[in-house]
């Protein structure tokens, strides 16, 4: 009895010591990462892993990193997270939308481990933070290029899953293409996968056969660009998540680069010097979290200048990609003249803007 009591109080003391550690300086931090695809996908997961390497480079011996790739979204993720928390990770970055519930479930069991979930919105526990990047800003630049470059007036978007993040990208891409080219039509194909190169390539092929000549992708691999490359310059596309410069100057005419490194370095640094606090981060072009990859010579100079002006205006804060008047697909008003979209509307976005045909799958 006595011995059990002793153990319990020791455990309590240990717990207190650790829970205090969140606000105290730490000598060494173990940062762990959970990836949805392989680090060799050349896109989304690759960029997160670049961020992880930035953390290692920034702190050297004071940080230890670990990662697990190809973790399915669901019950497996919970097992992986539990394993990581038990193995001494101080901070765990979960880098896909589908890890939202597993992250919060595991965070409840390990109050002394900090959890950072990418692209989600649930922060059920004090040790859960969320972070995201304003990719829709990059989509505005891509939409501008797409609207100007299309010869068939048909542009395409390979969508992954019907979540706000993706719908936001589709709307931004379409609005800005429409702005410079009123005749433009948007084709959306839902692939229902983040990563399946053969299916992504088939989706791109199906769109090309329908006359689409500018393709943006919201999936993780370079397969859509590889498919576009077969067209000998007739079809262009964009690097997604990573620069994908191996497909430059054409079909890859520009790209959205997810630059996670600065955020990861900042958060791990805060944990080291004791200033870490849970929160919600959503940076865009201005914060350097979304980079626009070099616009190649396959794009005429005046289009390039226009796209770069768009990028700079967004970076300077003088232009918001969702500025009214904008109607929803059914014709009802969303934003009035001059009104910009509140973040809450964007994070829960479940509707197309006016002019897009088709329905968002439920």
């Amino acid at each position, binding site marked *: 009895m006595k011995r059990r009591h002793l153990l319990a109080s020791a455990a309590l003391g240990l717990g207190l010591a650790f829970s205090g550690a969140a606000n105290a300086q730490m000598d060494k931090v173990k940062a762990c990462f959970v990836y949805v695809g392989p680090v060799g996908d050349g896109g989304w997961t690759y960029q997160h892993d670049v961020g992880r390497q930035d953390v290692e480079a920034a702190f050297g011996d004071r940080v230890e990193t670990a990662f697990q790739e190809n973790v399915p979204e669901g019950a497996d993720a919970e097992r992986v997270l539990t394993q990581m928390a038990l193995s001494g990770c101080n901070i765990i970055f979960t880098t896909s939308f589908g890890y939202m519930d597993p992250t919060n479930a595991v965070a409840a069991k390990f109050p002394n481990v900090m959890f950072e979930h990418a692209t989600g919105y649930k922060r059920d526990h004090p040790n859960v933070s969320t972070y995201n990047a304003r990719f829709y800003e990059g989509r505005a630049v891509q939409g501008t290029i797409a609207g100007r470059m299309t010869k068939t007036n048909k542009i395409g978007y390979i969508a992954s899953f019907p979540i706000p993040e993706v719908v936001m990208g589709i709307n931004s891409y379409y609005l800005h293409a429409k702005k410079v080219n009123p005749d433009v039509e948007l084709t959306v194909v839902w692939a229902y996968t983040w990563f399946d190169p053969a*299916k992504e*390539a088939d989706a791109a092929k199906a769109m090309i*056969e329908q006359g689409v000549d500018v393709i943006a992708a919201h999936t993780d691999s370079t397969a859509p660009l*590889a498919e576009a490359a077969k067209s000998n310059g007739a079809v262009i596309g964009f690097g997604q998540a990573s620069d994908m410069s191996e497909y430059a100057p054409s079909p890859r005419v520009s790209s959205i680069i997810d630059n996670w490194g600065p955020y990861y370095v900042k958060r791990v640094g805060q944990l080291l010097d004791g200033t870490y606090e849970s929160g919600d981060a959503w940076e865009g072009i201005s914060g350097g979290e979304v980079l626009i990859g070099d616009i190649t010579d396959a794009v005429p100079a005046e289009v390039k200048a226009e796209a770069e002006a768009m990028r700079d205006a967004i970076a300077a804060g003088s232009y918001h990609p969702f500025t009214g008047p904008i109607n929803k697909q059914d014709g009802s008003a969303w934003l009035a003249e001059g009104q910009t979209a509140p973040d809450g509307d964007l994070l829960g976005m479940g509707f197309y803007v006016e002019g897009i045909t088709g329905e968002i799958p439920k």
Partner: protein
Amino acid sequence: MDFGSINPAVLIASLMVAAVPIMLAALGELIVEKSGVLNLGVEGMMIIGAIAGFIVAVNTGSPVIGFIGGAVAGAALSLVFAFLTQFLLTNQVATGLALTLFGLGLSSLAGQGYNGIKPPPTNAVPFGPLADIPFLGRVLFAHDWMVYFSILMVAVTWYVLKSTRLGLIIRAVGENHEAAHSLGYKVTRVRIGCIMFGGAMAGMGGAYISLVRVPQWVDGITSGAGWIALAIVVFASWRPWRVLIGAYLFGGITVLQLNLQAAGSAIPVEYLSMAPYLVTILVLVIMSSGRGKASLNAPASLGQNFHASH
């Protein structure tokens, strides 16, 4: 059915391309199963073929040598399976599953440093004026040589199984290995040969994905094609020409559902996405209810290990 703006010629042409990997792998597995062996490692052999074919093609600059490399690698991996199941008499189901896991891991390791490289292109076979025939030209005469090769292989497997002495021996071994053994046929040797053929075909199918269909290497590129190939063999009730139909049906529906989406069809995406699987289940149900004919066609010794005790 309203296909909207979909051009049927283009659709048929692209489903023929989409079906090549699963068709090759399914043909190989058909021979393996005809000899009485169940190898569930098709996915593993395909992805090894995909990376090996890619590496060879990139380093030699020749896609043809790449396909041969993929076939050799697939056959080499299948030898692991052959050794374990034919000599050590391990459980075929468990060994096959292990082979898939092993292949996925090994391909990821071998593929380090091959991300983002473009393989040498495999061009369409030049048929000259034939390719300009309306409709038929696009459907029949605008493909790369592997598409024709895959159809040729269907004919070859059909002919060999049906009309040659070799086919008779393979079938005898698969139907009743004891009887085949007492007739003097080398059961183990025949099965190893069939397993290697299956590995080579799966490897070639994998190489087609990394060299033609996606043209690049990324980890996990086959993403389940091997399992579909396994399903097609059962679907085809172990008959080569039905493998062709099954592969075209499956490849066709996948391509069709993406095309219907791109064409702005009003059918909800969820139904389109599950269509290939629904049709497969449906056809399996219809076929197996046909007075038990299809189930009778399964090789009698399928999945049973053979040990010559005398």
